[in-house]
């Protein structure tokens, strides 16, 4: 019987993931399930692994403090390799499974947005917590996102580069993806409004490793500083090659480079790189202290941006369910109503019900010094 077969597979799958996701918790009974659609294999697998760490940490806390009205919270992580063909199948699976109350992910826009029509039709919230594509939440009223809006972030980066560091002629290197491109356009606009000039723009593909010739071109434009709209791995590669090429200009990097890996991969070359972050380990905010402390205790390393997004998202979903109930409709309606959920990224999360996004991410301005991210105190204080 194919039906039985499929069910038993599903059961086996949930059992397998559950045993890993939920460890000894006081909350009892039938778990409340979230579906996660994201990459565990393939070229983006590292991000899926980081999500898991953030989720699991949040679940320890949530289930340690009574779960969702006494029931434990858990998630089923379905690997899609961030491939649209697989994310649409996973979407159907989640929509058809009445136990799933909301979905988190996918990672990249092509995979996430291809699945949106299915979630919208199935009336299951698709919570794309890394989806900064401007059109993601336009997919329908079931698409929500707490990903940091680039319209928010890029003016802050521009202010850092132009106003605080005094750069006037900036060369921008950006990932040539939907995220990088959107960010670059917003950065350009903000920097120009602040009176700076963007003298060179170079878009590169995500799997690019050699930037030597790009840097010759950049140097030819005679900038007084570089802006990297990159993830940590490519930003580290660029920074190394910048220094190897003998270019001594200041480097500003988007907050997505905030990861211990950036320093590990970049070594001495990332010394002096200016960046920003939504949170910082020495932040006095209690939720940040809590998150960083527990993360280090559990994984014996510093958390990075993707860990924090995942942690925040799981915490937010738990808050919505605790307040408004753990079913699909309650979550959809609750997201619009919920106010001021404590958050590492935003301080307090409240959705703009028109855009279904969150405004006003926190911002601390950092610099890499002595092999560590440190507050950039030489220029001004934390905002």
């Amino acid at each position, binding site marked *: 019987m*194919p*039906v039985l077969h*499929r069910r038993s*597979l599903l059961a086996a799958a949930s059992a*397998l993931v559950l045993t890993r996701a939920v460890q000894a918790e006081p909350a009892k009974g039938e778990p409340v399930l979230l579906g996660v659609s994201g990459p*565990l*294999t*393939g*070229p983006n*697998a*590292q991000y*899926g*692994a980081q999500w898991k760490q953030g989720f699991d940490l949040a679940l320890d806390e949530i289930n340690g403090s009574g779960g969702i009205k006494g029931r434990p919270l858990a998630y089923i*992580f379905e*690997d899609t*390799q961030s491939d649209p*063909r*697989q994310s*649409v*199948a996973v*979407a*159907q*699976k989640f929509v*058809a499974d009445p136990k799933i109350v909301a979905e988190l992910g996918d990672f990249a*826009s*092509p995979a996430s947005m*291809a699945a*949106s029509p*299915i979630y919208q*039709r199935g009336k299951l919230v698709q919570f794309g917590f890394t989806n900064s594509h401007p059109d993601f939440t*336009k*997919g329908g009223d079931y698409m929500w996102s707490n990903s940091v809006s680039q319209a928010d972030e890029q003016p802050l980066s521009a202010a850092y580069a132009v106003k605080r560091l005094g750069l006037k002629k900036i060369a921008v290197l950006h990932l*040539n*993806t*939907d995220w*990088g491109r*959107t960010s670059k356009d917003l950065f350009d606009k903000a920097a120009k409004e602040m009176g700076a000039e963007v003298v060179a723009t*170079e*878009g*590169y*593909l995500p*799997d*690019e*490793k*050699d930037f*030597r*010739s790009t840097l*010759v*071109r950049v140097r030819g434009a005679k900038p007084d500083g570089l802006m990297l709209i990159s993830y940590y*791995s490519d930003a*580290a*590669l660029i920074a*190394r090659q910048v220094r*190897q*090429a*003998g270019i001594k200009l200041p480097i500003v990097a988007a907050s997505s480079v905030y990861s211990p890996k950036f320093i*590990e*991969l*970049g*070594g001495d070359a990332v010394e002096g790189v200016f960046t920003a972050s939504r949170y910082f380990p020495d932040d006095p905010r209690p939720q940040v202290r809590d998150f960083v402390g527990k993360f280090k205790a559990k994984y014996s390393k510093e958390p990075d941006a993707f860990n924090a997004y995942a942690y925040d998202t799981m915490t937010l979903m738990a808050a919505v369910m605790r307040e408004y109930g753990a079913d699909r409709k309650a979550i959809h309606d609750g997201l619009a109503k919920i106010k001021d959920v404590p958050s590492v990224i935003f301080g307090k999360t409240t959705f703009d019900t028109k855009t279904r996004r969150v405004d006003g991410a926190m911002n601390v301005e950092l610099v890499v010094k002595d092999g560590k991210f440190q507050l950039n105190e030489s220029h001004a204080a934390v905002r």
Partner: protein
Amino acid sequence: MSSWIDYTVNGIIIGNIYALLAVGLALIFGVSRLINFAHGSVYVVGAYAGFLAVTHLGTPLPVTIALVVVVGALLGLVIERFGLRPLQGYAHIAPLLATIGISFVLDQLVQLFFTPDPRALPSSLLETRFQIGSGTIGALDLVIAAIGLASAGLLYTFLRYTRLGWAVRATAQDRDAAQQMGVDVDAVNRTVFAIASGLGAVSGLLVGMYYNYIDPAMSFQATLKGVVAQVVGGVGNVPGAIAGSLLLGLVESYGIALFGTSYRNLFAFVLLVAVLVWRPNGLFASKRQTPPEPMTGTFIAPSRPIQIPGKVLLAAAAVAALVPLVLPHPYVLQTLTNSWLYALLGLSLTLIAGTVGLVSLGHAALLAIGGYSSALLALNFGVPVGIAILSAGLIAALLGTVLVFPSFRLRGHYLSIATLAIGEIVSLVILNWEWLTRGPIGVSGIPSLSLFGIELDTDRSVYWFTLVLVIVLAALQLRLLGSHLGRVLRAVRDDDVAARSYGIRLDRYKALAFAFGSFAAGVSGGVTSHIYSYINHETFNAQLSILALTIVILGGMGNVTGAIVGSVLLVGLPEVFRVAAEYRVLIYGLVLLLLVRFRPQGLLGTV
């Protein structure tokens, strides 16, 4: 002016890195006539072996290199013995698929052992840098160049002056004749794999040190660049591979200089197609050479296809049509809908690769052309979706045929590589042609499927729609194969000289078949774009082309039913293996290997 010196130096440095990869690929191709898709995976394994040695054992560089060579060589022996030797005597297409399976398995193993996180691979000794022009080069650049040259020199000596080297060259020239002369062909193969894999592993180590960066996902790009470099130089030609690599590095660097970073790969692939069309044996091949491949009837395995009576096919179609009523689970329907969409792609490629013998490695480009055509027609001009999809098929047929037409004179692997390059070119043009395609932002808000004003908004209706498309196009294709035209197409594949001497104009028939096949792929891409509602240049990527070829080989080249069965299996299996979470791709790779091992002519056999 001085910046041109910098661009040149940079081009040579990066070409230097490609050379290490290309030499290994060239060696293997020279002897086994095989594009080794697992080469990039060996490179990754080498990088990680070096990482372990440096970070855990603290070995100095020469020891690390020696260790990595040994690991690489052993891995090469294992690949040769268990992955490829059992496939000897089958057509070349089977080992090609085997190397794809091996690369899945190796990449995934590395990822499981070392996590997908990128790692730093420090090289403390080699931080000294020298000023050249206005940039600098490091000691590591020189070490890489030295190792590249030294290995090429050693190889040259080995091939020229040792008995085993003679055997390698004899085998490369004519395998059967060498065997008759008493050459132990297996030993030659082993040696070549060991040497090439040792080199591949060292290049992984050195490139990792160069960038202070390794991750398990870097294998595909490495294979791609290595293949391009060695083909530019002339496949199987070791000094040519080095020259080709340097040329590739220079062209990329000058491309960036003239047009910007996002055009880099575009130049590399345009160079490749130009070289292939202009001098199919590579830039550095001597004019008079034995034909690169003994072509007739060897690339595609002759076999007796499994005959399936028409009634059974009809019954199968009826069963497929009843699925939504018997088993109305949306997940199953979606997976099967995906299978039908890929079956369209499979039908297309099985006709082009199987029936006519043009093994395309860039088939995803046709999906992309179809997807973008349909999406943009519907969005920008308000064309009804049904007509947009039909137009997408026609546009893909026209554009696909025009793009590939210059390559029709190429044979075997050369055509495959040309199509691989054309596939990449299409994807890069989509990325850079912003006013039309919206560049990296992609096309969103594509209207959902509808036909004559009726919305196909349920899982069932989409399922039936795609199933009907598959059945109609499959029936047409079966009719085509059974006709006079079908026999002509097979004649072109089996013996093009004989076909030509019967007065058949090869190009025209190839173009006809390509247009018919591209139509199916374009329709598939068009339908996909309306189902997804959002596409960008990454939606139809190079991995998809590999999947398409896998579907076709698995089903049996040229076999219409086989393409459909292959598609259901290859789209379905990864879903079935979901329970295995991170091990999913590993199992998929192993199953692929076993299938190739025991059914190299495909499940249903070549038609």
